[in-house]
């Protein structure tokens, strides 16, 4: 984002920008090449279908601006099967980029070249990128770019290692000369319609077979025949050996459970000490500010800073380490190549609920955030599969809900029950996702399921640079969210919790002179302050709103304070924690932690009900917006909100009642 702003603010070069599109088979490293060219950090991952959107970036080379778009992967332009493939195809055919950079995986050159031939036949001006040069070298291949260039009629060929940016400079030069050739031959430039016209041509299977056969021949010329012989014996690779264990028909599910547990452990167990550190830091900061800023000067501003900002945003930032570690776990799943194995392993189980293995990828992505999770469903080629998957993605607990769990679980459960309860939350989310999908497939989305076809990438050592970049991007996006949405809403919530201010309190001011003589214990000045704060809060807009909602949420055991926190959670899930933090900061001037205050105020039954409700009910605004866009109809977003909120409400009520019965009530 920062970088894009920079490129805009630069003085614009005189000649018009060259529009470059990155095309290629899925997982050939297009996004890595884009990142290498532009210095951006778009999402990459070692499985097909990471990029599902047309993403942009730009760079300057020799005083000229190049606007690069990264396209989703596609096997051919002729027969797109899913939304992401259609996007790539439509962009290429209808937006007629000046230069197409075709990224190929050297490890599967014969097949990837088929798309190159198709692009050439359609008259695109190509630059061919042979990516994964490091892996090719390691397996003893010696690609001959010159031979390939000749076989393709003089197209320039660049060898790269996308993840490390090796070859980016040569690629820029090659793009520049391809673009220059285009400027000279501007008259002969294929018009916007030319490529599209060619698209209507009947591309039969025979033609496809011919192209594949020719691609094999050219690959053989480039690499030496032995490396590409389609009938030759297979060489066993490390990936094969790993798969023999990790994707085994029996052990596979154990490894799967272990991988999931690993992500989980990293997020929660490893994050705990860090979170505790940040919490202490924020508490110290608040104390310092509180001491330095005398209560009498600008009391409202002081309250805004201490209660609204530090209480609201601070209570969310406490859990930043956990969220960053969760992103790390998901990034490792994505970049190692395990993601596709997970889809393979669970396909049979997903089929039971009317989904398929590929639906699992959006769910895993949804562990980080539901928004990219829902978008990842674009790779599903069956519309009903896609809708059902998008519908249930918000049931997978996203990163924004991590603070809620981490606040509520330790607050209400003894040490021994915390880990199982966390696990339980995630399993409950998954179970409900499965049940909801099944239900949808039996009602609104009845019909045959799609086909499961997935290419498994080789395992790759996640490169430190890539992982760090991915985690950093996500973490900084999260920080941005904290600094914008959460801060803004925290201030709003603080305002709602502060105004209108109450002047007259029912609790008497402490007697001016000496210790009170015997009426009751209210004499303690601290207690009086607390009671007055509670009164003031109840008098505020938030308090009134919370009171007004009380009859609705009474079956869940929520009081008006929790109700106000739920209002915040509509915008972003973290605001649930923010608002509780604000209330806590407003109400209690002492140093009790938020968790301790919660434990003192509510019975465990209420805590569990709140956990269940925030897990299930009311996906956040961003999720609903993306659902509406992806489903194409507002109906689906509304249905999703209503169904999930209703289900959350009923299950939370049931939780409260059952917990009350087993003695966890008041």
């Amino acid at each position, binding site marked *: 984002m920062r970088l894009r702003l920079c490129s805009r603010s630069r003085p614009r070069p005189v000649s018009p920008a060259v529009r470059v599109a990155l095309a290629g088979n899925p997982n050939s490293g297009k996004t890595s090449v884009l990142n290498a060219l532009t210095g951006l950090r778009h999402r990459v991952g070692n499985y097909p279908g990471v990029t599902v959107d047309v993403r942009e970036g730009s760079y300057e080379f020799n005083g000229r601006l190049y606007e690069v778009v990264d396209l989703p992967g596609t096997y051919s332009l002729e027969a797109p099967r899913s939304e992401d493939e259609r996007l790539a195809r439509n962009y290429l055919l209808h937006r007629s980029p000046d230069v197409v950079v075709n990224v190929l995986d050297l490890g599967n050159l014969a097949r990837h070249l088929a798309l190159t031939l198709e692009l050439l036949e359609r008259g695109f001006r190509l630059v061919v990128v042979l990516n994964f040069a490091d892996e090719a070298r390691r397996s003893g291949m010696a690609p001959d770019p010159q031979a390939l260039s000749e076989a393709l009629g003089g197209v320039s060929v660049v060898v790269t290692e996308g993840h490390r940016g090796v070859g980016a400079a040569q690629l820029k030069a090659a793009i520049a000369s391809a673009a220059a050739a285009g400027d000279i031959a501007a008259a002969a430039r294929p018009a916007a319609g030319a490529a599209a016209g060619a698209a209507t041509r009947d591309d039969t299977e025979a033609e*496809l077979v011919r192209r594949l056969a020719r691609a094999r021949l050219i690959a053989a010329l480039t690499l030496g025949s032995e490396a590409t012989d389609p009938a030759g014996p*297979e060489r066993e690779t490390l990936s094969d050996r790993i798969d023999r264990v990790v994707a085994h028909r029996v052990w596979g599910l154990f490894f799967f459970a272990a991988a999931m547990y690993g992500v989980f452990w990293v997020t929660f167990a490893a994050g705990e000490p860090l979170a505790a550190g940040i919490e202490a830091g924020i508490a110290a900061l608040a104390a310092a500010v509180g001491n330095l800023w005398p209560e009498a000067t600008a009391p409202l501003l002081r309250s805004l800073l201490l209660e609204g900002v530090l209480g609201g945003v601070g209570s969310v930032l406490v859990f930043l380490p956990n969220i960053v570690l969760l992103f790390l776990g998901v990034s490792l799943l994505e970049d190692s190549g395990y993601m596709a194995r997970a889809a393979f392993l669970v396909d049979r189980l997903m089929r039971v609920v009317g989904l398929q293995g590929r639906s699992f990828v959006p769910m895993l992505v949804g562990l980080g955030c539901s928004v990219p999770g829902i978008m990842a469903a674009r790779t599903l080629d069956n519309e009903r599969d896609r809708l059902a998957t998008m519908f249930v993605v918000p049931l997978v607990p996203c990163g924004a809900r991590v603070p809620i769990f981490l606040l509520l679980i330790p607050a209400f459960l003894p040490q021994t029950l915390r880990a199982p309860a966390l696990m339980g939350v995630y399993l409950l989310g998954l179970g409900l996702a499965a049940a909801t999908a099944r239900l949808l497939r039996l009602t609104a989305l009845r019909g045959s399921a799609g*086909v499961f*076809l997935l290419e498994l990438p080789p395992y790759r050592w996640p490169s430190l640079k890539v992982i760090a970049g991915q985690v950093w991007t996500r973490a900084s996006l999260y920080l941005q969210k904290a600094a914008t949405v959460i801060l803004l809403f925290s201030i709003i919530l603080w305002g709602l919790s502060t105004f209108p201010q109450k002047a007259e309190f029912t609790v008497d001011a402490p007697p001016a002179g000496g210790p009170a003589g015997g009426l009751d214990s209210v004499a303690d000045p601290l207690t009086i302050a607390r009671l007055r704060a509670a009164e003031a809060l109840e008098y505020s807009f938030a308090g009134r709103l919370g009171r007004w909602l009380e009859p609705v949420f009474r079956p869940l055991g929520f009081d008006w304070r929790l109700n106000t926190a739920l209002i915040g959670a509509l915008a972003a899930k973290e605001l649930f924690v923010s608002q509780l933090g604000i209330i806590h900061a407003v109400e209690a001037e002492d140093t009790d932690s938020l968790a301790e205050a919660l434990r003192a105020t509510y019975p465990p039954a209420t805590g569990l009900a709140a956990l269940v409700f925030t897990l299930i009910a009311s996906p956040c605004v961003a999720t609903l917006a993306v659902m509406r866009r992806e489903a194409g109809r507002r109906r689906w977003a509304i249905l999703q909100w209503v169904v999930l909120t209703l289900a959350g409400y009923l299950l939370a009520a049931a939780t409260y009642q059952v917990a009350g019965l087993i003695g966890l009530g008041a």
Partner: protein
Amino acid sequence: MARIERRPTGRPSPERSPTEIPPALSESLEDYLEVIRGLRAEGRVARVRDIAARKGVRMPSVASAMKRLADEGLVDYRTREYVDLTPEGEQAAERVAQRHAFLKRFLREVLLVSPATAERDACALEHSLSPETLDRIAGFYQYIKGCPRGVGRDIVGEFRDCCASGETGPAGECHHGQARGPGAAVADYPCGRSVVELREGEGGRISRLRAVPEIRRRLVELGLLPGTRVELEGVAPLGDPVRLRLRGCRLCLRREEAEGIFVENEADGGLDGPAGGGAARL
């Protein structure tokens, strides 16, 4: 005219069966009989000049052929001006015509070949098939047309559905059928086994791909071309889906789709024998 005058096959045939042409009669002589009959059917006199024009040959060739047919007693060529069929010639020409019509019918009705092609191929076949093969084809035709209802199946109908869907094998549960449809360009004898029947770690070369067209296309795009080596790398927990290994990539797909991928044993193909296997890369 539809029926060929044939006795059930298998029995030692009598000296000369009704469809048989005297062995001495060569292909071109048979053709002459047909041409003469054709001209006559159009109500014209078969003159040497007409015959030569119709057959696209020079007149002396026609004259010498007529001499030979006359020697066989099949035509009356005494006038040296126009030709007429003798009663025996009439019969022989009739048989030739019947055979042509039968072959065309067989191509049209059983193999579902288009009319124009059937006409052309019938011309090509009628002279080149041995009596024995012709005999068998006739028997097969009768069997197919007469029997299928008896065993509860409309074989030709099923075959038609196959052709329509672009598949290359018979529909239904018979996956190992030897029939070849219009997709023969990408399918080859013999079909072999489906990949899901391989043992884990076992490989073979793709011999045939059977799938509904859109999926078939994607499979080809993914590199599952006939002739390509695939290996069944593994099976997911609960037996589905399966993992295939191709040169350059790994693929997972459900049994349902994988069942349509047929492979030949490498040994059958004879390309990578044990010796060839040693060519594994470094």
